[in-house]
């Protein structure tokens, strides 16, 4: 009797001990590997940008100081100053922001504060479609619509075929939906009690929107602006197609500021544009051209990384305020 009980108990104990499941471990291992692969991607990006840039700066024709300070980008004669390319990138980004920031913000205010559900139901899909259109199609649009339009308005002698203004405006159109959707999220996150309180004090809708809701959502809106800027800096196709393939080299103090350096109707190659043009076709490895695109890529990566970190900081502050 006792022995039989003993056997039963042993069997039950055996069943209750945790069964070893090698399959579980394999699955877990695979899932972990998938997650780790994203870190490998980052390491890959940093490694490849770092080593090739290092090779670039090893070249006799290139110096780090010259790279950062020279205002000529002429690889043919061995002058590698990144300033003209940065000028192109930031000029286009600035025009894009001038176009997109007010339009995007006002559109967001309308969607969040004024629009009825039906109106939203019409405009939101339009903005989503605009986000989904490939940038190369926007590039085509810049060349076949925006550039002729500008040349029609200001005259073909003033506006070059490749120009910064056309590229900047079209990049602006491209980032409007980005700004409006992020800003709208921020505006909608502002608690209704704030609006109610202001209305109770007799404020008009305009005063509630501009003096209560927008200031309250400011860090969220700023985050949207910064993300849009980062997107404009990294934008490639519109810039490559519409703003030309020659860097805007300039002699500081000699060239006129608005006649040349900041002339919106002249072309200026951007960083992304240089990379795309140089890399198209079969580029030979270990040439200075090949290495130079990585040095520019590294600069681009640092700029966009800084902008994205900044926007995350804004978002964090915004969350602390309302969550």
């Amino acid at each position: 009797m006792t022995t039989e009980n003993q056997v039963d108990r042993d069997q039950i104990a055996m069943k209750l001990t945790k069964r070893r499941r090698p399959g579980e471990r394999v699955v877990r291992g695979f899932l972990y590997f998938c997650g780790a692969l994203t870190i490998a991607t980052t390491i890959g990006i940093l490694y490849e940008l770092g080593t090739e840039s290092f090779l670039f700066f090893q070249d006799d024709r290139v110096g780090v100081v010259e790279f950062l300070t020279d205002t000529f980008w002429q690889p043919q004669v061995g002058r590698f100053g990144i300033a003209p390319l940065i000028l192109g990138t930031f000029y286009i980004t600035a025009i894009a922001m001038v176009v997109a920031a007010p339009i995007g913000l006002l559109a967001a205010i309308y969607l969040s504060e004024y629009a009825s559900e039906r109106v939203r139901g019409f405009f939101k899909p339009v903005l989503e479609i605009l986000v989904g259109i490939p940038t190369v199609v926007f590039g085509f649009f810049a060349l076949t619509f925006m550039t002729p339009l500008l040349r029609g308005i200001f005259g073909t002698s003033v506006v070059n075929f490749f120009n910064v203004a056309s590229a900047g405006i079209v990049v602006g159109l491209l980032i409007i939906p980005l700004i409006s959707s992020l800003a709208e999220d921020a505006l909608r996150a502002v608690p209704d009690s704030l609006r109610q309180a202001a209305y109770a004090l007799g404020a008009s809708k305009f005063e509630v929107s501009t003096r209560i809701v927008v200031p309250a959502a400011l860090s969220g809106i700023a985050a949207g602006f910064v993300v849009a800027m980062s997107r404009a800096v990294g934008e490639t196709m519109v810039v490559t197609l519409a703003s030309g393939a020659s860097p805007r080299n300039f002699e500081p103090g000699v060239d006129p500021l608005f006649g040349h350096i900041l002339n919106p109707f002249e072309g200026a190659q951007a960083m992304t544009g240089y990379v795309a043009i140089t890399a198209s076709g079969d580029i030979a490895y270990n040439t200075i051209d090949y290495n130079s695109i990585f040095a520019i890529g590294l600069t681009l990566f640092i700029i966009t990384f800084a902008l994205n970190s900044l926007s995350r900081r804004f978002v964090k502050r915004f969350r602390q305020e309302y969550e």
Partner: protein
Amino acid sequence: MSISAPERPVREYFPTADEYQGLLDRRTRRSRLFEMACLVALMIAVIALATLLYTIINDSFGLVAVVNERDPEAIVSDLGYDPATVELVDAEFDELVGLLETTVASGVGRRLEREQRFYEDRLVFESDEVWDEICSSDAPPGGCTAGPRDHANLYALVVERVVVQDVIAAYDLVPSLVNPEAFDAEIAAGIEAGRFGDYTADQIEVEWRAWFNLSFIRSPQSATPEVAGIRTAILGSAWLVLITVVFAVPVGVGAAIYLVEYAKPTRLNSFIQTNINNLAGVPSIIYGMLGLAVLVRIFEPFTSGAIFTTGVPPAENGRTVLSAGLTLGLLTLPVVIISAQEALRAVPDSLRHAGLALGATRWQTVRSQILPVALPGILTGTILAMARAIGETAPLILVGAASFITSDPTGPFSKFTALPIQIFQWTSFPQVEFQKLAAAASIALLLLLLTLNAAAVILRNKYSRRA
């Protein structure tokens, strides 16, 4: 003590009724103006979209002035058909080959045959001995291995070589509809000014042309805009999406499951999460550089297919569909992960607890309880990520898709071109015909994206009803 009236009249502190009304009106007016401004801003976005679509459609159709060296109708009647009912494109394969045989120089014919042969079982221009000789040489041309030309390809050749159609001027859709006479006048002025070389008014025919049509979709790429098509590019894009999906979906969903269901809040795991958010903000051109330096260059033996064959590799370097597809896979990975994470997080915890309480292991719970519920969300996110991958251009330029390719991709180790690359190339050519082709290819790309987005919506609706 009595209450004395204030020393100053009340109206210095409070507005009179009229002033009050004026202030109120001003505030109301300002409020209304502001609302209008906001609405205008929103309308600008709508107008931008409308103008973009208008530009593309306007450029894809319209009147063209063409010069045919030989009239297609005459060719059709020479072949013994009635030109009123039969068009050249309807002619038999053998008849089209016959046209080429009688028209092109034998040297050109031999070159065309070496590019791609006309029949599987016999040669038209080349003799069997020479053919065997060149095919056994060290660098055999494409015609030795590729399959024979199909009808669309042959027809394009006939138009290019026999009809020799040359589009000398093209008009946009709207002016063609509104004011077609202006185009005729423009042509006449062009002839007058000698802009069309030696062509006389009799030779120039004005006709309607839809640049976006079936033969445009079915024809391979060509340097001659009159016959160029996007089949090569569509197939290239299809291969790219296939490879992207096969790579990014399992890995992306796997990473999302790990982060949502398994990962404890350690520093490493939160670093992975931050890193994914960072990767989502990296410009696509930098992924292109990653693809170029790592996939194309370092992994060349793998991505060119060299380690899978003993003889000559299918591609001489790593600039293949596989490299590009994997690059796009890495690019879309953060998007897939983030959307899959959102879908998994939306699954109520009660399901997890119920599964685990019944003694199921974590993976059993995930597989049979959580994944089915999260599937519609994951699928939608995946399709939207694919839509993004289809439209990406910059990374493809970097990994080497920009070269001129006329043959269809045949496998992961083929050289390739893709729809956005075609649009980019054609847009950057100055001739007006190429602008038209770029517009037509844009229509194709947008239709493809529309289909994908519609599929996402349908899938979401179907599954959410079942759940």
